[in-house]
């Protein structure tokens, strides 16, 4: 047998109805991602990058086809079960406004943990330590809107990883940031995700990342093409 697939997509179809028009985004898409792989996803605006990530995270259900993550076919699960699956196995970073504005930085990080287990003293210490690593140690009790965009994104990445998911999905995580800050954020992703052996799919326009990727795809003709 080959290296086990972290993500395996078969015959995936997805389209949206807009008034009376059928707008096809993906048709018969197939894809295999191995454990620990780092995939970069390119494509014009509106080509379906976000949609693709949403399908994998189970946020959006496919019209047909299979999406198997760590051996579980999430396309066969109910909405409720997909949510519970996502809770344990997937970490997500969006382009902006990732954090819950009514929770402090520390609380934002603790929330995913609280969803899967009882919080302990150690969890709080871990969070503090992690923020230390992100050079945000003083901001434990700050609310997100007091943080800069880059700082917010770093917290968002930390939150996507805190509960130790095996798959990380990032939707243009540097899209709102300047070059320098974007560099820092990508570096962080590199350390925390790749070095930890996690599988990651990142939608981006950023050219720098392409070099670090194991594979680069772009969405063309309602399917993925390897660059």
């Amino acid at each position, binding site marked *: 047998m080959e290296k086990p697939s972290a993500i395996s997509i078969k015959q995936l179809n997805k389209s949206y109805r807009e008034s009376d028009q059928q707008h096809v985004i993906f048709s018969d898409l197939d894809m295999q991602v191995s454990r620990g792989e780092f995939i970069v996803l390119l494509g014009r605006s509106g080509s379906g990058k*976000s*949609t693709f990530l*949403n399908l994998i*995270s189970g*946020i*959006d259900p496919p019209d047909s086809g299979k999406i198997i993550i760590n051996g579980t076919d999430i396309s066969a699960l109910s*909405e*409720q079960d997909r*949510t*519970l699956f*996502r*809770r*344990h196995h997937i970490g*997500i970073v*969006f382009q902006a*406004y*990732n*954090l*819950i*504005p*009514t*929770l402090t930085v520390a*609380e934002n990080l*603790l*929330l*995913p943990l*609280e*969803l*899967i287990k009882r*919080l302990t003293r150690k969890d709080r210490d871990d969070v503090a330590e992690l923020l230390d690593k992100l050079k945000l140690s003083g901001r434990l009790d700050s*609310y997100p*809107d007091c943080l800069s965009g880059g700082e917010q994104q770093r917290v968002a990445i930390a*939150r996507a990883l805190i509960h130790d998911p095996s798959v990380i999905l990032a939707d243009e995580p540097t899209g709102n940031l300047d070059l320098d800050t974007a560099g820092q954020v990508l570096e962080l992703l590199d350390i925390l995700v790749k070095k930890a052996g996690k599988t990651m799919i990142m939608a981006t326009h950023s050219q720098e990342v392409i070099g670090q990727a194991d594979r680069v795809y772009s969405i063309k003709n309602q399917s993925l093409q390897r660059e």
Partner: protein
Amino acid sequence: MNSLLQRASRNFLWQHPWQLVLAILGIALGVAVVIAIDLAMESSLNSFNQATKVYTGSATHRIIASDGGLDEKLYSQLRVKGFSHLSPLVTGYVKLAQAEQESFKLVGIDPFIEKTLQSGWQSGQNENFSPVLFTRLMTEPNTALLSQKTAQRLHVPLNGQLSLVTRQDQQPLTVIGFLPDTNAVSEQVLAKLIITDIATAQEVLGLSGKLSSIEILLANDVSKTEAAIQSLLPGNALLLSLESQEQSLREMTRAFSINLNALGLLSLLVGMFLIYNTMTFLVMQRRRLIGSLRLLGVTRQQIFTLILSEAFFLALIGTLIGIALGVVLGQGLLQLISGTINAIYFRIDATVLTVTPFQLGKGMLLGMSVTFFAVLPPAFEATRLSPVKVMARSQLESGSRRLIKRVGFISGILIASGLAVAFLSGNSINFGLASIFLILFGFGLLTPVLTLWLMKFIERVFGRFLGVLGRLPVRMVSAEISRTGIAIAALMIAVSATIGMDLMIGSFRQTVAQWLHSSLPADLYLALPGDQMTAEKPLSDQQLKEKIAQLDGVGMVSTALQTKLLAEGELTKTTVFELAEKSKQGFIFKHNMDNSLWDRLEHQPTVIVTEPYAYHHAIRIGQKIDLKTNQGALGFEVIGINADYSGDQGHLIMSRQNYLRYWPDLGYTGIGVYARDGADLKNLESRISQLLTGQQVVKSNQAIYKASMELFEQTFTITEALRWLSAAIAFVGVFSALMALQFERTRQLGILRAIGITSRQLSVLIICETGLMGLVAGLLAIPVGFVVAYVLIFVVYQRSFGWTMAFYFDSGVLFQGIVLAFVAALLAGVLPALKMAQTHPAEALRTE
């Protein structure tokens, strides 16, 4: 450019139908309640006036007797002296054997008076009504006219017979013609009207030689003619202009009507929060659009006008719907209001909702201006939006937080001035109510600050047990305080008004119950109806009293006569007592009294006045009241003021001995029976009832107590109904705020879903948040409700009706208030929670 601008904003409105509908509903409901109350109240009074016109025609003045009826000689005397345009009337209420449950008004008229004084149905052209009928009415004894519909309903054909239930037996009347109706009021009045000639009316009503009133049409030289007529009147007669009579009816119901209107305005106040909420939502949601417009060169002025013109259309639609709703609602309230007026003020024979353009205009103006005021703050906010950077919601919140603190200061001033107005405004009812509004509004503005504190407190105390997820609802309430605060404030105002009124009504009920207990010292009471003063009544009443006093088991007997005297030129209710020793304990005096009082009441020209009378006429002990006697005016000294809750106009109390010195005997209207110790009351009651005839009844003091308390509850049904309306509007307000809130946080909820929060958890979160809001509203409503109750009891009700009452605390009311707020908020939260839980996370994430 301009039309494009409008289109851009209008499209946005169409995309938020919920908010659109709720804003319109807020305006509409507020306006509807105010209009409905106004219409119903005015119509009740109007109907009363029009109803009289059905048989008085175009009279301008009226001569009535204070009681006991006018001597019919007065009429011929006036005619002889050359006065014309006079119309004598004999009126009374009768029952028919054909319809035992109803009572009909029987009016005896002189059909051949001047044309000018005839009513519409008399003078109008009508094919099935000929003047020949008048001749028959006059010449044939025991003939009557009836409306055709009533005749059909009672199955009485033309020339068929009605049988009147009289004191002794039944008396037949022949229906010789049908009354044509001219409008809705007259149709209603005619449905319960029987017309006869004077002689027949006098006979069947037992009023031989008496008239109930003489209607007069005075066209020119009014004041001179008035004076000339006055000089011919005997002691018990009074000349009134119908205008002044209408005025005094209005005066009588003024306090009642002001209090009702205040309840309507409460609904409007709560509705105002709703409008404000929606308009801020519509502005805030478009901050990006407005920002871009500003960038394109649209001026602040234009933005301001844009928002205002939008509000104008919303207000217009809302107000129009409100007016339509108000007319429908008014129809419903009319029954309640005229029922209350019937029960406590005067008898209304017809109730038809009449709508005048003036009233509609008033409603229009009110709806438009309230909307205008509610929209000013968000409209200014819109002009301040920066064209360059679009502020995030959280930034706006920190801005509004600063504003909320400043508003907190203003609210302090409002509350303080409200209290000052309450206690410094003398006797004004309007100021008393205004103070309640100031207090409510002040506390409403203070609510957001208090909410922020409460949330901080909750977190500090419970935070560690709640976990991050549990803390979220608390945080959401305080983070979006500009929304949640409004909803909580609206709910708080409605609930505190409810608590305030409940405490007031409860206190009132207790006070009245205690008063009733002590003012019903006799065991049994006989009612001997006295609105028809027949000649033989004094004698037969006297005989009845003696028979009762001799019955086995009867200890003492007291009597009362309810009549009217002319006091200081006003027709004033007077109760004439023949007190038994025990009945004296029934009086609760509002001052220290010494025992010489009872003796003076018997032997000197003195009266006791009730508390409302003393209040309305600013009477103190020792002052004299001029009463018109047959020998001319005489001053009666006020020697006591006693508690009385039987009416809000107040009345005089006089001893029978004293009364008979100056006025003719009219018999009794009531007899109190004090049983001997150990007597069998049931048995006594049935023995007494065997002595009674016609409409005379005997009742135990418990039965009277029960009936009085039922009447008490009935007078508050209208208050109850209106209170629920304002609570309903508050509910819509909370609902609207929550809908807006959930819409605004779509993105945030999308993120929560992406992290792995299930839709069920999300609903629980939102429900917790709204439940929390309800609790806060309920908690804050308690102290505010207390303040409202205090002002109602010690300021408004005392000023309105002249009653003092004790404050009775009822913890159940507070508990109900909290539950009401909590349940209302929870219910209002259900739909937004479901809607958000059902939103696809993918869609939620696409918004921003």
